[in-house]
């Protein structure tokens, strides 16, 4: 009889446990690599998502922006993916985790940039689903590299 009394409670708990065991969704990240140059003029028409930001005063020093690459990286939960930058350095993205805060899907991503001799940058950030974060400053071919990184979970 006692067992039957506990049945509704068990029925409630089982889905919760199953939900807790659900693996985090995998993610797709885009790394857009833009070459900023002081010479020349204009923004490559292929640059769409990053364009409004490249028009901000912070980038006024550069007058020409060319899209060098648009890399798509598929990342399983806790997975990493490497990419090579045009200046020969190695970049790595790690999909640390995914969570929901204030009803917003958020992704925690780690980015590392390595020179052949040492790790240059190691940063972890949290951003909204499909949010964009920029990393810039590395020198390349008379200009600077600006990376636009956006990630979203795969439905």
């Amino acid at each position, binding site marked *: 009889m006692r067992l039957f009394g506990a049945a509704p409670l068990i029925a409630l708990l089982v889905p919760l446990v199953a939900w807790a065991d659900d693996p985090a969704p995998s993610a797709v990240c885009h790394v857009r690599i833009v070459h900023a140059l002081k010479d020349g003029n204009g923004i490559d028409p292929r640059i769409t998502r990053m364009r409004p930001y490249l028009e901000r005063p912070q980038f006024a020093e550069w007058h020409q922006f060319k899209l060098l690459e*648009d890399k798509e990286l598929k990342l399983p939960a806790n997975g990493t993916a490497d990419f090579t930058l045009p200046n020969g350095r190695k970049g790595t993205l790690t999909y640390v985790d995914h969570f929901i805060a204030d009803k917003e899907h*958020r992704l925690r991503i780690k980015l590392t940039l390595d020179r052949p001799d040492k790790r*240059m*940058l190691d940063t972890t950030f*949290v*951003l909204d689903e499909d949010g964009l974060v920029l990393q*810039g400053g590395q020198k390349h071919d008379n200009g600077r590299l600006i990376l636009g990184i956006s990630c979203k979970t795969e439905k």
Partner: protein
Amino acid sequence: MRDKVQEYFDNELPAEERARFEAEMTADDRERLAALEEMRALINGTLDAQAGDVDIWSGVSRQLAKETAHRGRRRSRYFGGAGVFLAAAATFLLLVRPWHPRHASDNCDVENLEFHGAWASVIQLDDSPHRGDGNTTLIWTEDEGEED
């Protein structure tokens, strides 16, 4: 049916198709992309400027009233329906601006930053002049001996 240039412009192509389109892009396509971009900036600028102090609905309803006065009762009912539809469409376009895809704000929190170089800085970039793009975060790094 939407064409490739428009889909590319709206960032709707899958990565592979996007890359293929970029490789095969003609001068004509580039010109169209530039024109689309220009048009979007123009429309956004105009609407942003107007949205603050122009009451579109009163203008539309005034126009509708004029139309009603000029046409027969039966006809005006038909055009009045179309006018209301147009006004609703204009309001929808003003509010939703489907030609300007909304981007999620990144709401980025940099939790950890280790850098081995000259200096690093985290800068918040706001979304103006294109409202709706959301703020974003820039992590700027400067290697030793790399300053211009």
